[in-house]
């Protein structure tokens, strides 16, 4: 299938998001679509799928202008989309099989009633094709994030396809699963399926794509075959100027141990964890999905129970039975799930930032002293370069990267001793990522001990002073200095895993 976008424009009110986008995807071609947060990538996706109507311009399929009224019409033409917030496209209470066959296109030609057996069989076959082995009768909500993403992919690829659009599909996947996905993409490419691949990870883009299209402020800033361009050019096209240092890591490590963990375990998530994190140090944790690193962070923040072991903060043993305990120890936790656990989307940016420290700004009769609150928030916002029209606008009006920085700001305000970060840059564009790394530097300069969990290996390697690798709930390696590179993290994470 040949997809051609012809001067596609789309605005939401005064906000013109797409301002004349033109490019083409040929049969069997993989086109990578890159661009900053808010550049319009996802909007373009929705235009192609019929979820949004363009204000002007055309989407041509094999030379034929299409006027899709809704996603169903696009799907009938063999266009499938894996949307960015993929979990929004799954039905947590339906089974895997039902998720894959929610529309069950054959039904309307056959019997009225749905055949469950056939559905289950087909779903199993589809997943087997993806190298996945899960019980298709389980509700999708009970699966891990990565498995959910794979179900989503299975859902999209289970039919005859002409065009597949993937909007940041690897944000939730680890290396191994990403590679599995790439194999699928190769297979589809070989079958002549056109593919649009959206990602903020340059390494992937260069690994996969035949051509790279960069969107900037709703216009095509770069459209070149992969062979004829390089990462620096792509980044320059994205942000408008050259970025020389992605990972501006500074070393601030001191000797005093802030967080000491001995023999920690939590039911079946992790066991026998011994860890020391020093002041000013960034300790990275690598591992594949389900290795227990997220659970460890959650336990340290009082969100899950330790079933054994001791934790010391600044040499004092502490008991972490709940969030208030963790906060008392000045432990901060940046959640990996911004939408569900981080944002109060309807509250102002300011209210979000002051949420964990509100008691500092309340005076007599619990009244909030707005001036004090505003100046504290203003300070931290400018320090962390949170860009918002004003501190009073709702959090939902910020771009993803700025939302993430605002959540950082919330925890920075608490003056943490220990900062636990789980996937702090997931879905964040290159520019904002770099700013987040600067924030990490600022914190370590103040002597904060940072624990960083990230599935983005280049990031993990570049930002950590030291990294451990976890596998099946245990620490299997500790890597420092020269030994800390992507290859060794990957090897330790995967060796022995099924």
């Amino acid at each position: 299938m040949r997809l051609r976008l012809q001067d596609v424009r789309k605005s939401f009110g005064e906000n013109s998001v797409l301002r004349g986008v033109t490019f083409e995807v040929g049969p069997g071609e993989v086109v990578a679509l890159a661009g900053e947060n808010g550049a319009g990538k996802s909007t373009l996706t929705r235009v192609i799928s019929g979820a949004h109507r363009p204000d002007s311009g055309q989407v041509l399929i094999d030379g034929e202008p299409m006027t899709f009224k809704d996603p169903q019409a696009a799907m009938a033409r063999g266009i499938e989309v894996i949307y960015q917030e993929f979990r929004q496209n799954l039905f947590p209470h339906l089974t895997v099989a039902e998720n894959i066959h929610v529309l069950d296109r054959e039904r309307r030609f056959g019997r009225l009633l749905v055949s469950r057996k056939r559905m289950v069989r087909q779903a199993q076959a589809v997943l087997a094709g993806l190298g996945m082995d899960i019980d298709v009768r389980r509700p999708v909500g009970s699966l891990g994030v990565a498995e959910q993403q794979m179900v989503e992919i299975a859902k999209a690829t289970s039919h005859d396809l002409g065009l597949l659009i993937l909007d940041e599909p690897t944000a939730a996947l680890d290396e191994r699963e990403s590679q599995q996905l790439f194999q699928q993409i190769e297979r589809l490419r070989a079958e002549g399926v056109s593919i649009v691949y959206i990602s903020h990870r340059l390494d992937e883009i260069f690994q996969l794509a035949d051509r790279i299209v960069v969107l900037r402020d709703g216009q095509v800033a770069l459209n070149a075959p992969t062979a004829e361009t390089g990462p620096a050019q792509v980044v320059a096209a994205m942000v408008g100027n050259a970025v020389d240092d992605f990972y501006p890591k500074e070393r601030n490590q001191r000797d005093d141990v802030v967080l000491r963990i001995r023999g920690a375990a939590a039911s079946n998530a992790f066991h026998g964890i011994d860890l020391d994190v020093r002041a000013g140090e960034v300790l990275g944790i690598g591992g594949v999905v389900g290795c227990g690193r997220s659970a460890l962070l959650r336990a340290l923040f009082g969100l899950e129970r330790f079933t054994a072991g001791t934790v010391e903060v600044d040499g004092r043993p502490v008991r972490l039975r709940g969030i208030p305990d963790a906060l008392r120890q000045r432990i901060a936790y940046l959640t990996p799930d911004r939408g569900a656990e981080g944002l109060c989307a309807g509250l102002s940016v300011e209210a979000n930032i002051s949420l964990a420290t509100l008691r500092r700004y309340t005076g007599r009769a619990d009244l909030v002293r707005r001036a004090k609150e505003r100046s504290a928030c203003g300070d931290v916002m400018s320090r962390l370069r949170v860009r918002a029209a004003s501190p009073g606008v709702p959090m939902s009006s910020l771009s993803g990267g700025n939302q993430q920085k605002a959540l950082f700001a919330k925890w920075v305000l608490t003056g943490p001793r220990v900062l636990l970060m789980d996937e702090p840059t997931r879905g964040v564009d290159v520019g904002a990522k770099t700013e987040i790394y600067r924030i990490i530097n600022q914190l370590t300069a103040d002597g904060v001990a940072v624990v960083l969990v990230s599935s983005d290996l280049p990031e993990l390697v570049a930002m950590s002073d030291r990294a451990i690798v976890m596998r099946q709930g245990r620490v299997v390696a500790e890597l420092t200095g020269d030994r800390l590179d992507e290859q060794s993290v990957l090897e330790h994470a995967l060796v022995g895993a099924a």
Partner: protein
Amino acid sequence: MIPNRSTLASAARQLRAVWMLLLVGVILSIASPVFLTSGNLLNVGLATAVVALLAIGQTYVIILAEIDLSVGATLGFSSVVTALVLRDHGLIPALAAGLGVGAAVGLVNGLLVTRTRMPSFIATLAMMSILAGMTLQLTSGNPVAITDYDFQGIGQAYLAGIPVPVWIMVVGYGLFGVLLGRTGFGRFVYATGDNQEAARLSGIRTHRVKILAFMISGLLAALGGFILTARLSTAEPTAGTGLELEAIAAVIIGGTSLAGGRGRLIGTLVGALVLGVIDNGMNLLDVSPFLQSVVKGLVILLAVFLDRNVDMLRALVTWRGPSAPSGTSATGGDLHADRPDPVPAPAPEAAQKPAGVSTVRPTP
């Protein structure tokens, strides 16, 4: 019968309301010798039929994460219309008019909810008020007598020893159970209730699904109205008042979540029977009328509480049990981002408790 559960978990879910029903049933059959007689059980069925029918539509609507507070008033309004048409034009036009009115009310509800994006709570509440007034206006507040023998049969006749309303209830549950559990439309109902945006992006016409569900609710209210009217041989303008809350209670006791996406029709039937059995039992045991509403409230609390507790137990079993593939599941909180009321993850709950035994034990 319903596709969204693994068989074991689904059996457990289904059993919960049944357990409650059995519990109440056993207590009553010990306490009253009359309870278990076939005559009395048929009474329970007869008394439950109308609420049970309303609860069918309500189940559809609640699985869609909406609510329909207008069913009681719809029942009253369509009853009166049916009776008036019956008086002047005969049986078939009357049935058609009654069902037509029910469907029309549902259509309006559905349009209000989908097109104007009013919360269904307030849209159907306003509709309830409007319909109640229209019913009174239509009849000047007087009941409309029913003399048509055939129509009375809908409420009073027996078929194979079983009252016709009970048959209607059984057939209704069979039909709408299959529709919900086995057809594409049913799938769309679950999908839309579970995640409307995803459903839309998957190509489901979610507005249409919602409108249809409200129409089913209106239709079944009209059907309930036939039964009530036929049983009473009169259409009372105030008939149906308050039945919406009974129906909603039945749905929730039956295990359907107000957050949408989850629920089974068989559970609703059991929920309606629980309520019917309680009423019946309190009458048999001659519980003081003042205390009856206290007992009923307590039983509802207990039923829903047990439902939630079995949920917790089940969650624990699922997490710990050998049936759960290891290394794949995560906490409920992580996975139900779009759901205010996720499958429970025990840990966060526990973490919230102000005081608790320290779980970080010093190493020996």
